[in-house]
């Protein structure tokens, strides 16, 4: 246990073998998997040498049929069973999904739990299941390439993803059998890919313009620590909007009517997209469209998209303000997303920040590359490396109070992990229960924010109104995931919830799906699960013994020491004898619980001594 070894950071008790870790960019249109080989991050191709995996899954009555390019071929012939752009549905509620339903051709239904699902010939599938299929495909590609089972993955998410969307991403990974080392924000991944963590000091802006979304992050780098200062953007603005603006110009120029049939619309948009891409390399393009021909120059296109670009620049300005950083302080600008290939985008960004943006890495791959580098650090292959990411939450988290108002408990752009407590009291005499409604968003009214979860604290002793003291604590972990506790302080009645938003899958549904997938390859999974638990058990035994030897006498009494020694013995025995991974897992958990106090005391004593006795010079050199 590393907490039991805090006194020697960066040193592992024995050099363990190199572990297999990947970075996964789970994208709206395309997904990628990357890993680090010989110190270099690279994306992994499939057998045909293709790096990008189209994020498309095709279903037949028997189940998921194929993923990627093969699935995309069914797009036209079998649109209702060929699911693409599922990322836009991930972690969304029924209302959001209905709104997107106009753009996506699927048959949406709700299951008994009221969660939105897509009706296919294979029955109802959730966006989480579809995402899990994509992840499985990438994992098997990686396992074939790395010749072995993966130990863990970093999966990227847009910085603006809210709690529900993050949780849904993590659920998809669980379903696909992937151990998630970290959900990493895409802009942060991009900054890592550019090796900016090697720079000593500086402030970085990451400008990420995809097909349908825009995202900007401001980060500060000092001595290997990436601190995200602010993040912002527009989840409904992207390169697709450029296409629409150009298409509208084409329509007017060619004298086509405003009411086009779907086929004509398709042609118009495809032409617009092709013209946009061509104008990256040439000053003007000749266009033939049905019976019309004409020329679009780069200058004219720039005029067409400038309004959209100005919107992104406004978002940049807001983020700088949130970060408390003047624009002159920006040292580096990183471009991410296919839409940043448009030259006008680069010019505008350069003009606003006063810095020529970095763009030498493929903007489609840069996120996966950064994720792979971070996975390498987290899995422990790069021990001693001091790179650390301090992320923020993109949207405020609050609680419903009287009158349908929201009291913000954690403000947006707060560094995570974070815990905040707020105290409330009862409102009526003799009130014995309190409902806690957890929300996310910036607006003042409950109706304008996203509802994440509700739970009740019951068993409050009857008191006069205002006498009870109810402390509600929000804890957000490093992945941006929330858990909430409510406790009545005079009686110690407590209620706790891991926020599983009503948009994802219910816990037992995941268990059931996992069970189903276990049944497919039961023996494999059993063996793999057992092996994982054995590795964990070995590490725990070794760490605990070392920690006992070092600090046991100092921090524990004789009884506590004996109790831990017995627990370790029992664990060793079960480790050797059992073939049931669950039995071993239970014992590991039990030993973990037993040693928690010890870990906590060591953490405490270590935190006290971490800086004591060091001069500032030493700290700075560290």
């Amino acid at each position, binding site marked *: 246990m590393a907490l039991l070894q805090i006194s020697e*950071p960066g040193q592992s008790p024995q050099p363990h073998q190199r572990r297999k870790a990947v970075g996964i960019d789970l994208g709206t249109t395309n997904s990628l998997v990357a890993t680090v080989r010989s110190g270099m991050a690279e994306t992994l191709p499939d057998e045909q040498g293709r790096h990008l995996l189209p994020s498309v899954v095709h279903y037949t009555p028997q189940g998921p049929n194929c993923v990627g390019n093969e699935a995309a071929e069914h797009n036209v012939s079998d649109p209702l069973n060929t699911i693409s752009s599922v990322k836009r549905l991930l972690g969304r509620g029924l209302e959001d999904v209905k709104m997107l339903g106009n753009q996506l051709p699927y048959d949406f239904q709700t299951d008994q739990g009221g969660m939105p699902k897509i009706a296919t010939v294979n029955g109802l599938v959730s966006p989480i299941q579809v995402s899990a299929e994509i992840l499985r495909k990438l994992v098997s590609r990686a396992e074939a390439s790395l010749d072995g089972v993966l130990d863990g993955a970093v999966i990227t998410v847009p910085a603006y993803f809210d709690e529900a969307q993050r949780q849904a991403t993590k659920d998809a990974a669980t379903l696909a059998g992937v151990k998630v080392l970290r959900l990493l924000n895409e802009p942060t991944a991009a900054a890592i890919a550019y090796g900016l963590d090697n720079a000593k000091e500086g402030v970085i802006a990451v400008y990420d313009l995809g097909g349908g979304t825009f995202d900007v992050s401001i980060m500060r780098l000092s001595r290997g620590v990436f601190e995200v200062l602010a993040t912002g953007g527009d989840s409904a603005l992207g390169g697709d909007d450029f296409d629409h603006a150009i298409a509208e110009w084409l329509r007017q120029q060619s004298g086509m009517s405003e009411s086009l049939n779907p086929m004509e619309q398709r042609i118009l948009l495809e032409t617009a997209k092709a013209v946009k891409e061509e104008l990256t390399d040439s000053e003007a393009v000749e266009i033939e469209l049905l019976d019309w021909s004409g020329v679009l120059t780069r200058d004219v296109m720039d005029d067409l998209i400038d309004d959209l670009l100005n919107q992104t620049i406004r978002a940049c300005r807001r983020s700088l*303000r949130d970060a408390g950083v003047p624009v002159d302080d920006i040292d580096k600008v990183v471009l991410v997303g296919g839409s940043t290939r448009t030259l006008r985008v680069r010019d505008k960004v350069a003009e606003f920040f006063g810095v020529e943006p970095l763009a030498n890495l493929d903007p489609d791959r840069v996120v996966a590359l950064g994720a792979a580098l971070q996975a390498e650090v987290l899995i422990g292959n790069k021990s001693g490396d001091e790179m650390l*990411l301090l992320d923020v939450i993109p949207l405020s988290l609050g609680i419903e109070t009287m009158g*349908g108002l929201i009291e913000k408990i954690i403000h947006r752009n707060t560094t995570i*992990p974070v815990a905040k407590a707020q105290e*409330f009291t009862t409102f009526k005499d003799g009130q014995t229960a309190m409902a806690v409604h957890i929300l996310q968003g910036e607006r003042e009214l409950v109706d304008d924010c996203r509802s994440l979860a509700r739970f009740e604290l019951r068993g409050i002793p009857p008191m006069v109104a205002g006498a009870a003291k109810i402390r509600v604590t929000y804890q957000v*972990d*490093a992945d941006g995931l929330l858990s909430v506790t409510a406790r009545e302080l005079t009686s110690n009645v407590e209620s706790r919830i891991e926020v599983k938003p009503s948009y994802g899958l219910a816990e037992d549904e995941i268990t059931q799906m996992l069970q189903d997938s276990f049944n497919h390859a039961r023996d494999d999974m059993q063996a793999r699960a057992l092996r994982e638990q054995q590795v964990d058990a070995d590490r725990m035994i070794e760490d605990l013994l070392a920690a006992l030897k070092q600090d046991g006498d100092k921090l524990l009494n004789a009884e506590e020491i004996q109790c831990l020694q017995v627990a370790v013995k029992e664990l060793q025995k079960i480790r050797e004898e059992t073939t049931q991974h669950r039995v071993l897992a239970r014992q590991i958990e039990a030993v973990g619980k037993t040693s928690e106090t010890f870990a906590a005391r060591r953490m405490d004593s270590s935190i006290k001594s971490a*800086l004591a006795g060091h001069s500032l010079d030493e700290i700075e050199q*560290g």
Partner: protein
Amino acid sequence: MWLRRELSRLTCAPLIENSQSDGPLNFSSDFFAVFSINPAWDVDLNDLGVRYRKLQQEFHPDRYATKSDVERRVAVQASSFINQAFDTLKSPLKRAQYLLTLKGTDVDQETHITSDAVFLMQQIELRETLSDISSKENPLQSIATLRIDVESTYCELQCEFQRQYESELFDNAFNAMVKMQFFAKLLVEIEQLEAELEDA
């Protein structure tokens, strides 16, 4: 509706005792001790940042990504605690409130009404200036001027707090802190308006 906000508690709640662990985690008793600095008004923010990052490099949950659930949970708590300490000490207002808390002053009183009539008049005038800005000929210029005014007064109040606090006149320090709250709030509103004007 069943909830009523009781307190505007900013910091100082020992969050760790809400942790899932059975035994309470008593991290160092106060936020200054977390960074091994003296509990005083004067804080070198650069130095604080260096110490903060040093601690996070050691205790952030990413350092425990492959460890057991228990360790990761403790790391999340430790890292949160360090974040909270940093957040409190780097903000002048929160630091002032926290210093008063350490001296046993309850800063969570529901209403902070200052009886300083001159101060209240000044507040009213500043707020009127702020609400008139949108109709000015050059609003960005006017708001920049207002901001400089407000920031310099905010600064003076901080000095006032420091003087009173260091003379151990905690009631006076409390009054200065209450005035700081007014100005901190005003600055937030100025920033919001600035953002709106720039976006327009």
